[in-house]
């Protein structure tokens, strides 16, 4: 059985907000790596968009410039 990861936001608002910033930053970097890998492996932009739950236009606009 998978062990659930407990994520408890820090009580201090400044700490909690800084954690959100760091998470967004990490998520952005993970997204770029994952999208690049999917495209390299032959995924279409439409498939990547579906997997991310966003429109093809959105994913293309955000990532295509680094793939040309």
């Amino acid at each position, binding site marked *: 059985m998978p062990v659930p*990861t*407990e*994520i*408890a*936001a*820090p009580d201090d608002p*400044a*700490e909690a*907000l*800084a*954690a959100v*910033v*760091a*998470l967004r*930053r*990490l998520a*952005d*970097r*993970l*997204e*770029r*790596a994952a999208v*690049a890998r999917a495209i390299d492996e032959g995924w279409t932009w439409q498939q990547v968009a579906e997997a991310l739950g966003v429109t093809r236009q959105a994913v293309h606009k955000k990532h295509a*410039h*680094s793939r040309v």
Partner: protein
Amino acid sequence: MKIKNPIKDMRTIKEILTSAEDAARRAGESQPGAEHLLLAALEHPEGSARRAFERVGADPDAFGAAVAEQHVGALRTLGIEPPPEETLAPPPEAKPSRWYRANASLQSAFKRAGELARDDGTWLKGAHVVAAVAGMEHGSAARALRAMGVDREALAAAAAAEARAAPPR
């Protein structure tokens, strides 16, 4: 008050902004924030930003690492150990654009730095950027400065004094 040397002013501004973009990209971020603007000012050969740091006994070369460390520390408060750098995406490519794209924190710091320079009646110096960023209470730059043990008010005062003292290039 008039800007005394608009050509020099424009060149310093352009170099600092371009270097802030590079600093953000090296950190794996697509848009620069106030922390990257400060890093750029500290790297600029004009030197007044570095001298402002040195006035309060802070190491200008330690700021970049302090920013990175506070991101890691913030993730750890959530119980998340950040993955190794090499597994993350390489820095984003420069996106050709007619506009300068930056986070709100950079825009606000840059605007304030420009106001400080105008009040001093000089071209924009790195020390004005230091004073502007030191005036920000929250955000990545403020947290990194705190982690370095830098008193923001003391740094802002030192930067203001440096901005008035620094000889023009």
